[in-house]
């Protein structure tokens, strides 16, 4: 008997290494994703967070090889269960999507084909990969099984998307996303357009299906409350950089990177009224990021060293990395001071 959220093993199913993605503009390239590396473990749910424009969706689309021009992958490696995604030919890649990697897109409610019945859309996905299915009865049972996984009633089998509510459409997308038992599913803001009760149902469905089918999940979002409920680890991005990646309990109990701290502090609560924590967004020009640390212009603890040297990820404990000079052993005194300041504020 395993407990929820302790299901992740140490087997790496997705390894992103030194991935860099640019968007070409006439004024020069915008650095959307800047040399990020991370691992996703088997059975794990990883949350990818950051404010708009931090590159979280671009990272996801990069992994799926769906970056559209003028965006392009500059360099890097993306390995899914031993397969280097960047080396796949177009036809191999087409096969790999849905079976190796699948996406539950942002605004999934609008990504169903309005002219096709729900069943036909799911059959389409299955037949595109497994060929024409001769046993129609088995196919139907299989789709009913998928419906059951995501808590949908069988009667929607013959319905059109417009006959379904937003939450049901979202669950159809989840059903399609897991139909071929992919290794990794990426859910891009899969619940952000839903009412809070429906959001809870969809989020719980996502986690349940993940556990039942045994896939690994990347959830992209900015609702820190929702992520606290459903993920095992959180990766925090800022302006194209990954600044911290940590087990979820650590992120909320003791965020290490100054930006993660800011993110946690700015979560509105329904338990207590607290002073508003006012911050501006990303302030630098994404074509000319500051030297050294990407966050130093907004960081309350930055000093000269931060402008000179870019901080590299430091392992602070198992599965917990932070890219900040404060956690370099050489600057232990500064870290103590910084935390003292924080405690007083």
């Amino acid at each position, binding site marked *: *008997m395993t*407990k*929820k959220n302790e299901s992740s093993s140490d087997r790496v199913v997705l390894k992103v290494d030194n991935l860099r993605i640019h968007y070409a503009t006439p004024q020069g390239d915008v650095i959307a994703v800047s040399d990020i590396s991370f691992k996703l473990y088997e059975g794990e749910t990883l949350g990818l967070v950051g*404010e*708009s424009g931090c590159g979280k969706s671009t990272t996801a689309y990069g992994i799926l090889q769906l970056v559209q021009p003028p965006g392009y992958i500059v360099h890097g490696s993306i390995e899914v269960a031993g397969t280097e995604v960047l080396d796949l030919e177009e036809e191999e890649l087409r096969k790999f999507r849905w079976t190796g990697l699948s996406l539950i897109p942002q605004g999934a409610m609008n990504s169903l084909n309005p002219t096709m019945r729900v069943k036909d859309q799911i059959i389409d996905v299955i037949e595109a990969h497994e060929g024409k299915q001769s046993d129609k009865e088995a196919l139907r049972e299989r789709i009913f099984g998928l419906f059951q996984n995501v*808590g949908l*009633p069988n009667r929607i089998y013959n319905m059109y998307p417009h006959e*379904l*509510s*937003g*939450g*049901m459409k979202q669950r159809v997308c989840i059903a399609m996303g897991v139909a071929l038992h992919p290794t990794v599913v990426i859910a891009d803001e899969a619940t952000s357009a839903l*009412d*809070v*009760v*429906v*959001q*809870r*149902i969809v*989020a*719980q469905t996502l986690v*349940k299906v993940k556990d039942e089918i045994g896939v690994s999940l990347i959830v992209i979002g*900015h*609702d*820190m*409350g*929702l992520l*606290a*409920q459903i993920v095992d680890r959180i990766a925090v991005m800022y302006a194209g950089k990954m600044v911290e990646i940590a087990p*979820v*309990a650590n992120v*909320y109990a003791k965020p290490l990177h100054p930006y993660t701290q*800011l*993110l*946690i502090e*700015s*979560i*509105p*609560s*329904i*338990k207590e*009224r*607290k002073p*508003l*924590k*006012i*911050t*501006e*967004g*990303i302030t630098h020009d994404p074509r000319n990021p500051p030297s050294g640390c990407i966050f130093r212009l907004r960081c309350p603890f930055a000093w000269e060293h931060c402008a000179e040297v870019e901080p590299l990820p430091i392992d602070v404990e198992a599965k917990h990395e932070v890219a900040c000079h404060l956690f370099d052993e050489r600057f232990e005194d500064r870290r103590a001071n910084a935390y003292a300041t924080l405690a007083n504020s």
Partner: protein
Amino acid sequence: MPTPLLQIRDASKIYYSGGFLGEKKSVVALDGFNLTIEKAPATITTIAGESGSGKTTLANLVLGFIKLTSGKIIFDGEDITDMTAEQLKVYRRNVQAVFQDPFGVYNPFYRIDHVFDLVNNHFSLSDNRSEYRDMVEAGLNVVGLYGEDVLRKYPHQLSGGQRQRIMMARAYMIKPRLIVADEPVSMVDASLRASILDAMLRLRDDHGISFLYITHDLSTAYQIGDQIYMLYQGTTAERGTALDVIDAPQHPYVQLLIDSVPVPDPTDKWDVDISLPSEEEMRTAASQGCRYYPRCPHRMDRCLEEQPPLYKMGKPKHEAACYLYEENEIAPIEPPLLENRVISTAAFDSGRRRQRERIAVAVLVVIALALGFFVGASRQPETVVETVQETVVITATALPEAAAPTEAPPTATSPPAAAPESQAIVPAFVVEPEGASDKGSIAWGADAVGEIEDADDRHLYTFAGYEGATVQLKLITGGRGLSGTGFYAPLATIFGPDAQVVLAFDRARRSHSGELTFPADGDYQIVIGADDRGRGVEVYTITIEGDEPAAPAATPMPTLPPPAFAVEPAGAVDKGTIVLGEDTVNEIEDASDRHLYGLEGIAGTTVDIKLITGGRGLSGTGFYAPLATIYDPNGEIVFYFDRARRSNSGSLTFAETGSYQLVIGADDRGRGVEVYTITFEPADA
């Protein structure tokens, strides 16, 4: 009394579709809605609800974009539906809007200063160039921005937060008295929302501008809101101060909503899996009665009859529209309309008629209460009421004719049948350890649990305890099948060596912990079973943490104890025999006060039984359980009320002639209950 800034009375908006060839359909977006915003001090009034609740319809009505189907909107004493073009222009100056999408409202080809130029042209704020620039700068400063940083930029060069604050600055320059802000933060990053909320607070506190803040985000409402209206399908489910409502929601819908707001704390996870009824169910039931009926875990037959009025809750201005609070005072209808000029409309008159009818209902209720149906003082809804006073009325319209009973039935005046003492009376809805499967002994510090598959599957474990030793217990469960109830109740109970309950887990939560100090050496038992509605539960882990004790002696399982939370007729007050049709009885004062009645049954006759109860103090538990059980002459249970519902009915065919017993008592959490009426009526022949 000064004229309020905004008064909305009995406002309804119905959208019609079809009707030419097909069937004409209507959707009620807003139904008899009332709202008052006072002039001073300026406030932020939140309108919250899910999509389809009517909140955006309300915003559009107040902004004058759409017209009411019936009712009135009065701004500073002027009815906005009857305004002339001139008056409307003044109104638009007074009531400004900030919309959801901080991208769509800007023309991407113009710099930011163009936004302010347009305002100046339209409202002729100033002819003087330098005076105008000062006004723009002042407006930007109020929302925490500086002209030099933003005015010469293009919209795409600013963050969503900055763009929304510029819209606030723009609204501020016109010096409105009310800003309708429709989801102003929902498309902005969480980390930038605070700056917008801060701008709203500054406009409210420093510049006396009130807000109608439309949102589905309860956390921001909680941070800055004054009053809050929780809308459900066009009606107000609950209202009060944002802090009162969100801290202690009373309406079942609002409870579910607030419980569903994800808490940013990985150690505080959602209690239960929930599901929604199908779309059709949710729509069709809305025609009459409470709109939340199809989804409500507390629904009663009563809820279908008429839409519940707003009842007063404990805190001032806190009101909820739910019959669970029927014994509370009905909230007064809004203060009378204060208008500068009265324009009578048919719609308004019908609204007033409805108000009068509601007053009449209120008066009737008050009279009924005075007549003795209700003896309680108004209560604090957030406290669990331990003491309950009530009356049980037992009536029967006609007794079944006992034509030729073989034995003379006991007369009405005969002493009540004594409880059959020799027989162990086992109530029906508790875990019955006899049926539990023996799962062996638990080793301390190690997990020891399996899955409980269904209501019949009960597990029993034993473990050793040592007098004075203390262990930490934690029960973590995962639920299935209790959709929408907000309630989760595995029965996990620990019995001591003397068969007494030493610890029972709090059933209102999924994650329990507790400390147990063993009262004596010996073998303890833990019984885990289905919840008391007979539904299966899934138990993940029970850990018992503590020092590893000396190896417990393997002992045979002791005789299982009687369950702990049953009514014990032995402790009940003997209330005599009920004469069906005549007798009324009693008050149950508290958890230890249990009543026992004798009933004379005649073999072969059937009675319909109806129990109507009114509960108090069980708010938020989704659970209501008076124990009302009928035992036959042999001490067997022949009838008990379904505890999942408040309104119960059933029928009982007396199997034999003799003395039956009815036991009424507290629920199995030891809380008082209030029983209004039990009726026994002969069944249709």
